[in-house]
């Protein structure tokens, strides 16, 4: 029970109801964390052990051997690199495009304002499978220049295509991510930019600044909190994508790490301990981002959910 006092609401000391509440919450949390904890536990056990004493058994040895094997055999560092190659430009471009549209839509009024905003927002809400068939065909038939590549170890990152098509290229995945996510980012940023007075833009225009300059120098810096929140969210969403890379990328070694997890199942068959290590390794970056930037996360979703 809360007590309203001048200055705010403070919580009452522990009452039986409170204890019940905490009990319920703690039980739920336990239930919630268990599947992930079990995956971590499984990943720390060598396969030879679980084959012997069953998967649900007390630990004999706990070591990182699965992690080492997966890291080396499955060449995980390269998959992380693949992911970064897709996600970092993706987030940057999505934010740039979204902020540009949001800027034009909120700081200037023109006839198709609303329609444009609606197109973008709705675009993000469509199930990807609705557009995948023509998109697939489009990717197979769009010519993209091959201008060389950057080779890192055994992995090669083409600029911009290694088969003269959009299909099976990093640029293709980046592009669909950007366009798909721009909707949500535009929506959030336009909400945010609406709170920026138009007079700022007007006076800057009067002073002779051009539109681009205003966007870059005046408006964007004011949006830093929203941009930070969106960057966190988008990093996670693009990182976690499974479908686009699965369909629009052919070579397994080019895929980002979440789709590569699928490959690993083919490689390690029924060695669940090894696969668990792979899954945990794939899950670590977003979890880290979440722990470090939790506030941004929540803010991003909040901005996206509520208006103002």
């Amino acid at each position, binding site marked *: 029970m809360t007590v*309203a006092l001048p200055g705010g609401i403070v919580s009452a000391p522990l009452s039986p109801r409170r204890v019940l509440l905490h009990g319920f919450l703690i039980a739920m949390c336990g239930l919630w964390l268990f*599947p992930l904890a079990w995956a971590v536990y499984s990943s720390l056990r060598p396969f030879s052990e679980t084959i012997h004493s069953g998967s649900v058994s007390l630990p004999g040895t706990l070591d990182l051997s699965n992690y080492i094997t997966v890291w080396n055999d499955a060449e995980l560092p390269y998959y992380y690199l693949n992911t970064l190659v897709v996600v970092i430009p993706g987030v940057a471009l999505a934010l740039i495009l979204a902020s540009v549209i949001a800027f034009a839509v909120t700081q200037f009024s023109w006839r198709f304002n609303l329609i444009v905003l609606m197109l*973008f927002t709705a675009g993000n809400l469509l*199930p990807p499978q609705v557009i995948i*068939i023509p998109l697939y065909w*489009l990717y197979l038939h769009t010519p993209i220049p091959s201008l060389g590549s950057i080779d890192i170890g055994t992995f090669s990152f083409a600029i911009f295509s290694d088969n003269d098509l959009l299909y099976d290229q990093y640029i293709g995945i980046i592009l669909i991510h950007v366009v798909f996510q721009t909707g949500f980012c535009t929506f959030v940023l336009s909400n945010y930019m609406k709170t920026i007075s138009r007079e700022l833009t007007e006076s800057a225009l009067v002073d002779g600044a051009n539109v*681009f300059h205003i966007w870059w120098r005046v408006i964007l810096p004011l949006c830093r909190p929203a941009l930070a929140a969106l960057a966190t969210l988008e990093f996670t969403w693009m990182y*976690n994508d499974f479908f686009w890379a699965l369909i629009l990328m052919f070579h397994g070694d080019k895929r980002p790490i979440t789709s590569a997890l699928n490959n690993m199942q083919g490689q390690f068959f029924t060695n669940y301990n090894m696969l668990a290590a792979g*899954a945990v390794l794939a899950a670590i970056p977003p979890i880290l981002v979440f722990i470090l930037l939790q506030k941004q996360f929540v803010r991003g979703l909040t901005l996206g959910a509520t208006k103002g």
Partner: protein
Amino acid sequence: MGNSTTAAPARKQEASGAGAAASRGRKRYSVLTGVDKWQLFLMVGIPLALDLILIWGPTVASVFISFTNWNGYGQITAANVNGIKNYQVLFTQYLFFWPAVRHNLIWLAFFGLVATPLGMLLAVLLDREIRGTRIYQSIFFLPVVLSLAVVGFIWELQYAPTEGFINNFFPLNRTGHMIDWLGDPNINLLAVLVAASWRHVGYIMVLYLAGLKSVDPALREAAAIDGATERQIFFRIVFPVLAPINVIIVVVTAIESLRAFDIAYIINHGKNGLELLSTLITNNSISEASLVGFGSAIAVVLLLISLVPIVIYLSRVMRPERS
């Protein structure tokens, strides 16, 4: 709400003063130079073009292709057009269409009646200033930051018939008959729904918490002073005030149910009880089978169903714009 009120007086000022805000083609915005106009054109044009080419273009194309029997190779010609045949087959003959629709509806029902309310409940419980609320929230939200591929795998560790946790920990095997969580078509959808809800609950919780925080505390205080119980405060005052957020939550739930794909696909490509409209599309047209026309018909069905929550969402969130 704050936004619309800021815009209105500003516009009034502009209309009367110099340096008036203009819309293209209506009033002259004398301060916008030619360069400015080009920049604006590009700023809107480029993203819009990309959006139209990569998202709306394919959407419209899907509709057209659904009236053909094109198989994706070579050119699509008049010979390929077969009218509404794909739809006829889909609705009356294809054995897996109605089960998929049913499964999507079950997904919606489960999310709507179990997962979303649970998320809302957790939000309400955690909206107080109790000790550890931050930690609780983090834990419930954690699955949201995991990829669905990872979620699928984590739950496979639970559900696997011989090596999974559930079958090994609980004495469920009756003389050799073990519960086949993922292979038994009567229960595998439920198993997948539990895994998907594990993630959905946290997402809803955060959205609802955001909404709850926007409720004016004065409202609650007033009710508390008037002697209302917590329950009454929530259902009579808070819940109605949160009407806009409630709509968003419902819409988000619907959209997520229609987008369901990853977990079912990872488990067995969406067969034998895990058919979903999204997996049907994938299996029919972007796998070795290249039944592009047929698959597009399924895609159009999914599109039409999805447009319902999308339109509701747009009408809700775009409402203040119009005023």
